[in-house]
């Protein structure tokens, strides 16, 4: 029995400990906001936070998560009010939207590490997240916008 704390809520996981966190979240615990894209840690669609760090859940076995806090896209905010989610909506970033949970989780982790990233910081932090629709340009704009929004929020 493994206890998984997802978005502040505890779940008892009683299945194969080798199961990647991705499938535990999606199939067992029904957090379907986290997406499958490659199963090999190559595309970033499955990105979640484990104790605040971005992690590829498709290659992270459940057994590796001991008493750590998992945050998924659903846990980022109640109503999409996180600055990154706001910036994403303001700039109409998504096209199909499928990779965007992972993009947003990577972007949030970046901004928590570096409040005012430059273009190079963004490229590095986001290089593991693929978007086939090609929204990279707007993602970059949205991260800058989110950084500005966060500053305004803090300043006000």
């Amino acid at each position: 029995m493994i206890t998984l704390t997802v978005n502040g809520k505890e779940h008892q996981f009683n299945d194969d400990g080798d199961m990647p966190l991705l499938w535990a979240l999606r199939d067992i615990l029904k957090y379907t906001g986290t997406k499958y894209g490659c199963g090999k840690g190559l595309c970033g669609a499955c990105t979640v936070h484990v104790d605040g760090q971005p992690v590829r859940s498709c290659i992270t076995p459940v057994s590796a998560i001991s008493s750590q806090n998992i945050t998924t896209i659903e846990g980022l905010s109640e109503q999409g009010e996180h600055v990154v989610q706001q910036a994403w909506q303001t700039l109409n970033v998504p096209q199909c939207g499928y990779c965007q949970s992972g993009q947003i989780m990577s972007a949030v982790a970046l901004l928590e590490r570096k409040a005012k990233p430059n273009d190079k910081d963004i490229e590095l932090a986001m290089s593991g997240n693929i978007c086939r629709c090609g929204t990279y340009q707007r993602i970059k704009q949205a991260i800058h916008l989110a950084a500005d929004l966060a500053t305004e929020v803090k300043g006000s």
Partner: protein
Amino acid sequence: MNQIENVSRRGFLKKLGISSTALVLGVQLPSMLTIPKALAGVVGTDKFIPNVYVQIGLDNIVSIVVHRSEMGQGIRTSIPMIVADELGADWQKIAVVQGLGDKKYGSQNTDGSRSVRRFYQPLREAGASARMMLQQAAANQWQVDVSETSAINNTIVHEKTGRELSFGSLVAAASELTLPEQSTLILKAKKDFNFIGKSDVALVDGKKIATGKTTYGFDVELPNMQYAVIARPPVLGAKVKSFNADAAKAIAGVLAVVQLPDLEEPAVFKPLGGVAVIAKNTWAAIKGREALAMQWHESEHQSYNSDEYKKALATSCDNPAKILRSKGNVNKALSEAKQVLKASYYVPELIHVPMEPPAAAAHFHDGLFDIWACTQTPQSAQSSVAQSTGVAAENVNINVTLLGGGFGRKSKPDFIVEAAILSKQLNVPIKVMWTREDEIQNGYYHAVSYQKLAAGLDQQGHVNAWQHHVAEPPIGSTFSKGADLIGSEADLGLIDMPFDIANVSCAAGKAPAHTRIGWMRSVTNINHAFAIGSFVDEIADAKGLDSKDNLLALLGPDRKIDFSLENAKYGNYGETLDKFPVDTARMKAAIEKVSKMAKWGRKLPKGHGLGISMHRSFVSYVACIVEVSENSDGKIKVEDVWLAVDCGLAVNPERIRSQMEGAAIFALSYTFYSELTAKNGVIEQNNFDSYQIARFADAPTTHVEIIDSDAPPGGVGEPGVPPIAPAICNAIFNATGKRYRELPLKQYGIV
């Protein structure tokens, strides 16, 4: 789709697209059979349903049916914009409802850049007829002439007296009225549009996407649902020889192992065959599949090896089996030319890699199917399931989820048939998921192509001969086994070469297919535009002309081209040439526009180069300029892309821009990185490490301008793609002096 039925008056509610089941996923769903009854009791009293696209409730909510699939092009925003504008609806009081697969909507086949092109008029008429009935109902109540009323923000207004009635309050009265004749419909003038042509409409699904609350095909959860992955033949047509079902069943969580029928070609949309592993969760299914120890029989297609195939295609170009366009006498003109330029171009086999691989959930019960799938084509999903299972098509309910990308892959419903077969056999809801490896190794591929071009220059340096030979396995082979000659692919940028040249010949050589050949975003325009767009730049260089000046000169005088006068059967994307002409004036205007945007001719930093290209596809015109830079290591970066788009009237400019931004990345992927190769019939790539696509650092800044036009709306999703690759290669030539004729460019070590 020119006739609009008043479905409420006819009590036509069977499998009505607007129903709670279309909106709600992941909860216990009522049987589809119960829905018509439930709704039948309320017809005409609390809903006004003037046509299949619009429904207005007493609560003053306007439900608008989106009958086309959303895969990132923004159609779930654009269709409501069209309907709401004509209706006079309040955007805040709109509910967007995804239509079930049903032929009452007309075609739902969401590919070919057709959604707005084909439905702009019918959707406007749907909105206008609803609005006119509401106006009439209000005018009757007020005892005034209907011409004195107008619709604004879900309200009918009597301007003279200031009286107002909400749409909701007119539901009962409007439902009793007769539908206006199509000829009497009054459509809005362009200057009166509130939504059409405006850039400030937020994405309908934007908030749900940002909060992870959307439902894609992969996300569907049904009560008691089981999860399936399938071991499919590594070589097309290979039949199952043996497998170890016991080993798979020994994996904890595996519930069943089912052998699917072997594929008999043609493949069409049938499952590929193989063995399905059904489990309590995806992970157990994947582990179970690994334990199967599959053995396969030999297949005739294991002769497919990419290196040899490429050579065969090149040879086939020299022996064309069919002349597709013929004007003047090319052979004579070439033999008499002062200078003959020749070049060959190669684009490898490609695959779609939508971020969401195919997935479908099927529930067979009570003799019918309820299916949820990320499909571009719910109606052919219905017929394909019917064909494979013997269940009548009208008993196959297809709910369309959001698509995590499509690009043409999800217009082939083979994966939906797999789920249907398994659910019917096991009598439980089954979700079939394709892994990334499955998607890359068992796809409907973009055809590999070899092209040989020749141009003859006369004494004055004018191009007076153009010869273009291609060899590429045809899409037709997927539908007719053994087909080895392209058909309508020739209409995609090959025979519609627009240059004003006296002697022209376009021809195709044979190319037998060894994989399923499908269509991928912009289809063979990818190959043809790359070759033609590169070759004209080679002509410019040979003539010592500026690339843009050469392009304009070759296009010649303003004219509308009729290729039938040159022995070519040109399909024009299913449209008439009257409505959607091949207009060189629009081509030149796009080139001039993009040149201004990019400041063509300006002095560039060292190691930088500009490249230009223009291509008409899906009846829209896109001109492109690319700026590249070469660094000290000889690596190329695409810095900026400028795109000037003439797609006729721009319905949703914001999404047109995003489609163009995305097209630049899509094309950059195959220009730089993507390539499939086959060895003994097996595709050698299997994930994003071996089949690469553009990542964040590759992304240029893309600048888009839409040319103002009152022409009918043309395609948007695909036309941005074709001109990018030749513009990149032309820019590289201008930056470095090196001409690259084979994709992807990573083979040259420059990216």
